[in-house]
């Protein structure tokens, strides 16, 4: 039982924190507000690549730094703390999926370039009105003896327009296959969506897209791959939320300590202090459950129950903290010249993405009803 960070983990945290601190400023973030331009800082992306932070979980054979999932998770906490405009989670998870499930030919073709940041990857597993990527209802494929023909619709695809390759799942009856497609392929249309957080997201429509066998990442274990990535995606969303919530809480603590009313700092009013104390407890719960889930995945252990619990907290705490932080700022928080409001957008994004609190509570309830999740 170790809740501390080891030497490497501390270094990764400190290095990324200082890169983000120097490069992610409110002025820079302001340039992406209201979709003025795609929220992707390519200079920062190059700096992360140079520092070896894009390839945290990638083997050295492909130019990676060969650390574990926990290190990536801690990196995402720092992305959250700074709300840095970089597609780290989607890029890294796509790489990791290819590394774990793809054939050597595909790995060699894609991973070195992805690890160095020359090309960008993303994944398209989610579908409209369906939070469960293990059952793809809206995207299907047929195999014509030589090629795969894919049709359907994917939703909430981060950075689809910026990506060079997209990992995409499609079903044929019970079988789920994961392909690599190029955004410019015939039959692929990408419709950008403007979402709360300003992150570039898109809906992808596939109209009889022809895919060669060489572009298949996983055939027989397609659903295993999707689950493997999706588990880690959930985990990284929670870790990102840990960073966002912590930053917003600290901003609120500082603000209330400086802002005076009736001649005293508003922090000295017990009602304000207690609301912040509740935020502190909330975030501790979110942090511990998120670290636990990441730590299990790091060991390649099953974490179904722990992930659901972490996501319930990520959703609930995101919602509660957003309103508490705004409330104790009493007006300053909604002013777009003050940095809090962008954090609130991300709190909401992480709350809702791949299902909110009630959804995951029900998912956890299903697991319990099936006899899982008893305390040992």
């Amino acid at each position, binding site marked *: *039982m*170790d*809740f*501390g*960070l*080891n030497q490497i*983990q501390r270094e990764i945290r400190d290095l990324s924190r200082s890169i983000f601190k120097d490069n992610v400023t409110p002025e820079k973030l302001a340039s992406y507000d209201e979709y003025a331009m795609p929220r992707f800082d390519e200079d920062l992306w190059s700096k992360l690549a140079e520092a070896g932070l894009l390839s945290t979980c990638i083997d050295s054979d492909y130019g990676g730094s060969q650390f574990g999932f*926990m290190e990536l998770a*801690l990196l995402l906490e720092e992305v959250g703390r700074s709300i840095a405009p970089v597609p780290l989670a989607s890029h890294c998870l796509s790489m990791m999926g290819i590394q774990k499930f793809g054939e050597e030919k595909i790995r060699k073709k894609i991973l070195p370039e992805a690890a160095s940041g020359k090309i960008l990857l993303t994944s398209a597993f989610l579908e409209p009105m369906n939070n469960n990527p293990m059952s793809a209802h809206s995207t299907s494929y047929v195999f014509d003896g030589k090629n795969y023909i894919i049709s359907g619709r994917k939703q909430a695809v981060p950075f689809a327009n910026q990506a060079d390759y997209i990992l995409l799942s499609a079903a044929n009856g019970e079988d789920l296959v994961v392909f690599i497609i190029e955004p410019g392929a015939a039959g692929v249309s990408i419709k950008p969506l403007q979402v709360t957080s300003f992150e570039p997201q898109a809906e992808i429509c596939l109209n009889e897209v022809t895919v060669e066998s060489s572009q298949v990442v996983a055939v027989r274990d397609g659903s295993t791959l999707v689950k493997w990535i999706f588990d880690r995606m959930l985990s990284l969303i929670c870790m990102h939320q840990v960073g966002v919530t912590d930053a917003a*809480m*600290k901003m609120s*603590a500082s603000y*209330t*300590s400086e802002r005076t009313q009736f001649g*005293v*700092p508003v*922090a*000295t*009013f*017990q009602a304000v*202090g*207690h609301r*912040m*104390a*509740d935020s*502190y*407890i909330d975030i*501790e*719960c979110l942090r*511990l*459950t998120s*670290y*636990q889930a*990441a*730590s*299990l995945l*790091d*060991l390649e252990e099953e974490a179904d*129950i*722990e992930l*659901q*619990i972490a996501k*319930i*907290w990520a959703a609930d705490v995101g919602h509660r903290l957003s309103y508490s932080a705004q409330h104790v700022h009493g007006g300053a928080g909604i002013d777009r010249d003050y940095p809090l409001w962008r954090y609130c957008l991300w709190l909401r994004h992480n709350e809702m993405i791949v299902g909110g609190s*009630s959804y995951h*509570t*029900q*998912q*956890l*309830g*299903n697991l*319990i*009803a099936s*006899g899982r*999740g*008893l*305390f040992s």
Partner: protein
Amino acid sequence: MKIQFNTEQVKLKKELREYFSEMMTPALKEECERDLGEGGGPLWRTALKQMGRDGWIGMGWDEKWGGKGLTPLEQFIFVEEVMRAGYPFPFLTTESVGPILAEHGSDFLKKTFLPKILSGELIVAIGYSEPSAGTDLASLKTTAIREGDDWIINGQKMWTSLAHFADYTWLAARTNPDADKKHKGISLFLVPNSAPGWSCAPVHTLGGIRTNVTYYDNIRISDAYRVGGLNEGWKLITSQLNRERLSLINFGPCSDLFNQIVKWAITTVLPSGESVIEQSWVQANLAKVRAYIECMKLIVYKQSWAMTEGNLDMADASAAKVYGSEAFIEIYRLLGEVVGYAGLIRNSDEICPQASKIERLYRTASIITFGGGANEIQRDIISAAGLWMPRASR
């Protein structure tokens, strides 16, 4: 970062689980249930001494004092398992008073008390609160006045739980009424409950549990029974309370209760033909309870780890107390909803074997939000020590 037990800890947990399942005979179980989780009965006493002989008490104590020198984590695993088994373990004596005595007590006190605590022969009650000193504990009025080599103690204490069967009271008394700050004039004593002038009257509570008001009428004790420095009792009180806070949110019984209720809900069929757990709201309630307990578990494990590393954070200790106490209440409410009307029945477990326990636990749970330091004060500590927010002077 690795939030899993190691092999030895898993083994220890298993060993303890087996030990306690053997120890908890039906007769002992019945006696513990009769005493509403307080203990004090003859079988309870015998079992405690047996635990002492088998070397289970004070696992985290220094080997020098007869402990096993294990970390707070193993110590917590022990408390978790003993409580889970339904045995009201006197953890204030063993986990809180004992270690503080080992650290601050004189050689005489250590030699007199520590072996007896370790062998399960000596129970200590805590005497802090008074009728007019609760949250503002430092304003306590019980006095100890020096007379030669002795002290004469006079006063009254509230909520002296276990006092009716405990052997000693860990008593905070004012030894310097003229100190510039009121918390600087307090010392700690171990007062024998058999001393002439000591008396005790029951206070019956909402949850059925008996606690006490205790009276100290010209009790004469030797200076040898004073713990720590003269007028330096406040430090011992706060350090004792920090340890107590962690023990208060033991989730062992709660996790077992959750398991039992889940099994009941899966196997119990409603008159409508569907099982209890097929109702979506039941699943949602159980999921919420599961998520609450998981956090409680992680919080105490983290704190036990932090204690092992020697960096227990004051704000985190308070956060654990607030979270745990409020989560318990919510957990009992949610589980109570699952068993429904059975959760109001005290004398029958015909519908659900755990229902009457939930009926009682719901009533007893309100104690912990103010006991062991009111949650408001804990929240003050969190915003000040955890977030560096200034606080109003009191």
